[in-house]
């Protein structure tokens, strides 16, 4: 229980830190771009929304910083992230709520696929080290070195422009109406295949490499030798003894590298014009839509934190030592 309490406390602190960073960024930046935007939209912004924007970007100079901070938190607890300038006058929370399922679906499925396949491959390669399988390593080094979005560019140029197998952009056939029908779901899967494939290919090498190195390290442990000496089947030794222990650092590195993967996939969405959070962030940056940018950062951070909590629970289940008292 102590492990989970500790981690829980840590996530509370991280969430607080992310919100605080978000609070201070617009306040320490030189210039006052939001005030100019409000002035330009004078009379069109509802007074309540304007009040939220003032709190979000610290335009109330007469209030103390502490008062601003308290107001900011009060606003967040009401789920009010201000209004978007690009999608005027839609609230930021609504804009994000529309894009979020797409990103979670795409990035979530692709990341889990990549982790599972990569770990399995790494187990195999690590177990049979010194065979042809080791020649996969330089290839995976190459893939871990290229940025996601470049791979996306290459994938589009090969599979969409040259071969014409997959659509180059978008997330579903625009002639269809979004609803739960086979046709629509099929279209979503068809449009999502190439982006998902790109995410898998570019992130899988890290998992393969990590698992392979852990397998190499673990397979020389005494308990593996003993298991082998007992005459257990090779499969059993590999999966039940070596991989079972090698996967622990893999899970904790999954939690840590999640932020990095999410960052990479966000940019990849831009290349595919996939209507997720990343594409939204791109349009927000291009249009200098500050409320939207800040809201997106907060939502991404919360999503990554939740994924981390899930990874922590998985780790706690996999490693009984963490559940020990003391």
């Amino acid at each position, binding site marked *: 229980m102590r492990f989970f309490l500790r981690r829980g406390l*840590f996530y509370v*602190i*991280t969430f607080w*830190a*992310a919100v605080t*960073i978000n609070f201070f*960024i617009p306040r320490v*930046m030189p*210039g006052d*771009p939001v005030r100019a935007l409000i002035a330009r939209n004078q009379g069109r912004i509802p007074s309540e929304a304007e009040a939220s924007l003032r709190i979000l970007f610290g335009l109330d100079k007469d209030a103390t910083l502490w008062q601003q901070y308290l107001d900011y938190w009060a606003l967040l607890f009401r789920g009010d992230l201000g209004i978007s300038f690009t999608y005027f006058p839609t609230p930021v929370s609504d804009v994000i709520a529309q894009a979020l399922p797409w990103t979670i679906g795409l990035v979530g499925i692709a990341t889990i696929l990549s982790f599972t396949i990569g770990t399995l491959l790494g187990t195999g390669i690590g*177990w*049979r*080290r*010194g*065979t042809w399988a*080791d020649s996969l390593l330089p290839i995976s*080094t*190459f893939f871990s*070195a*290229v*940025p996601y*979005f*470049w791979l996306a*560019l*290459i994938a589009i*140029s090969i599979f969409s*422009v040259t071969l014409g197998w997959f659509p*180059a952009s978008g997330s579903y056939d625009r002639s269809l109406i979004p609803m739960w029908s086979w046709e629509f779901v099929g279209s979503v899967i068809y449009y999502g295949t190439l982006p998902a494939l790109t995410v898998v290919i570019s992130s899988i090498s890290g998992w393969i490499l990590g698992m392979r*190195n852990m397998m*190499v*390290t673990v*397979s*020389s442990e005494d308990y*593996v*030798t003993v298991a*082998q*000496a007992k005459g257990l089947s090779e499969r059993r030794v590999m999966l039940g003894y*070596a991989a079972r222990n090698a996967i622990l650092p893999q899970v904790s590195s999954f*939690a840590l590298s999640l*932020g*990095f993967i*999410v*960052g*990479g996939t966000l*940019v990849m969405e*831009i*290349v595919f014009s996939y209507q997720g959070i990343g594409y939204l*962030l791109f349009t927000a*940056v*291009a249009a*200098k839509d*500050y409320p939207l*940018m*800040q809201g*997106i*950062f907060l939502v*991404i*951070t919360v999503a*990554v*934190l939740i994924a981390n909590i899930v990874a922590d629970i998985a780790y706690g289940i996999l490693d009984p030592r963490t559940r020990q008292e003391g």
Partner: protein
Amino acid sequence: MTIDTSIVEESEELAKPSQTPMTGAVAASGRGGFGRRRAGGKPPKFLFMRNSKAVAGLVILAFFLLIAIIGPWIAPYDPSARSADVLQPPSWQHLFGTTHLGQDVFSQIVVGTRGVIVVGFVAGLLATAIGVILGVTAGYIGGLGDETLSVLANVFLVIPQLPLIIIIAGQLPSVGGVTVAVVIAITGWAWGARVLRAQTLSLRKRDFVEAARANGESTWRIITAEILPNLTAIIASGFVGTVAFAVLSLITLSFIGIGNTGEWNWGTVLYQAQAQLALQRGAWWWFVPAGLCIALLGMSLTLINFGIDEFVNPRLRSTGLNARSLRKRGIRPRIGFTPVVHEAKEDRA
């Protein structure tokens, strides 16, 4: 499982390098106290350089460093100059073809190397400095200070860095290369600090540190003379990793269009290619070379880090060697063949 005597012999032979201390792992910069156990001959210098991966990485990195220095002088054209040769595929005149405005892609990449390298190294140096200061302090002082600093590092690890960099850089009125480097360093120091803290924590309890403390050496001297030399390899690999991260971040930022688009780097080339529909026009030469350069640079940094890793962790090193010699003898490598004495591992823990 066939265990024959030759493997036992081999394990003896391979165990020797594993006993080398971690001091001065990089380019034998330490006191030269290792490698002495090798039978006969003079002690090998630059043991690090024997690692083929590390050498390959260093050669590629040196190549890019050279281009970064002399790039603007050897570029055949002005990267921004327009010409009548619009969207030409690669030829002898334009090695990497031309853009929609007739700009020479090869010149853009050669000139842009400097921006990438400068930002990468400035960010790497800054982030490593922050990481060393915070990580070593946390590991050495322990207690509440340690708790606070490691929570801080973990918070920065968990918060997604790229979106953070994007919203900071996106709100700055003007973004030059050095500004980007500073932003990247502020967000990217945590990994190095975490690793350094863990290692310092274990070094703090070692006999030689205890001895120095018993001798009444000042804290400052213990840290600089006893602890830091033993962290050289980790600091170096952290630096290399941060440079790779910074290069990727810079290129991603430029690709999104944040930062000074007038300043050439590989990311701005890709930004132009994407914005001018190079994909739909089938102009592969516009975006392939820049990506390959990023991959090459990233790979060279990864290879250097592999070299450092294998230098520090004898298990990773000897498996490769061992597997090769086993295959020569027709033995299928399996578990339990990693010829490393177990003392070496306990020593590290």
